[in-house]
């Protein structure tokens, strides 16, 4: 059985690796369309991490919303704002080296802090079911839940207006 545990552990690290690779590609690739596809890879990787962490509901929501929703939006925008011809315009600005150093410093800081903090780990790892999330959403978090609904409506209207008013201007 140890073999199986080892395999599953390796599997988890492979997922981590693929996710990080996807993320790196997403932030460095010059072709923005490829970057978007890499983002999809990252998102699916994160969803897989959720599945590994026994947060299946979140994983499914992640795929449904991010991959099915946000990714489509991003790609649509890429398509609408990029002329098919120019695909590989340099997409990074001139501050990448200082930023890279800064980001690495931050990562170092994070790693140190994670190492230093005495985490109070529970003896039994928690598993959250979708039913619990649902009940929590309509009891403890009912107010933020409703607020989110309001925000979504506002955003719906705002987006429609943003997209629409311009058409009017173009026509007139």
């Amino acid at each position, binding site marked *: 059985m140890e073999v199986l545990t080892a395999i599953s552990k390796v599997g988890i690290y492979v997922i981590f690796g693929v996710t990080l690779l996807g993320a790196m590609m*997403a932030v460095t690739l010059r072709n923005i369309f490829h970057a978007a596809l890499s983002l999809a890879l990252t998102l699916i990787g994160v969803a897989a991490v959720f599945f590994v962490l026994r947060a299946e509901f979140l994983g499914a929501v992640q795929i449904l919303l*991010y991959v099915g929703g946000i990714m489509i939006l991003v790609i649509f*925008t890429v398509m609408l*704002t990029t002329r098919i011809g120019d695909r590989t315009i340099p997409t990074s600005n001139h501050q990448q080296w200082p930023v890279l150093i800064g980001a690495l410093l931050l990562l170092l800081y*994070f*790693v140190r802090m994670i190492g230093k903090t005495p985490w109070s*780990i529970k003896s039994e790892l928690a598993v959250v079911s979708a039913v619990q999330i649902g009940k929590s959403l309509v009891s403890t978090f009912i107010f*933020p839940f409703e607020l989110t609904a309001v925000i979504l409506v506002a955003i719906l209207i705002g987006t429609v207006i943003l997209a629409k008013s*311009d058409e009017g201007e173009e026509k007139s």
Partner: protein
Amino acid sequence: MIPLHHILFFSSTLFCIGLFGALSRRHVVGILISVEIMLNAANVNLVAFSRWTGLIPVNAQVFAIFIITLAAAAAAVALAIVLTIYRNRKTIYTNEIDLLKW
């Protein structure tokens, strides 16, 4: 199961990658992509803490759901704005959209 540290290392690396992207990208959509990566890193953290240390594990996941929802909403608005900018200025490179200066 792997220890909590490793997941936290993973999420902080993911976060730093996203940060790097957000600061170094020139393309507005690229910045947005990086921001989404950062949000995802935060979500991974929340879920990990919910599993390992949370007193009420549900809360962290509910927060993650709120983050996903609002990220989706924010993406919708951001992309609508990007489209508007593109229509008006015919560019989506941040160093060309600099009307905010003095």
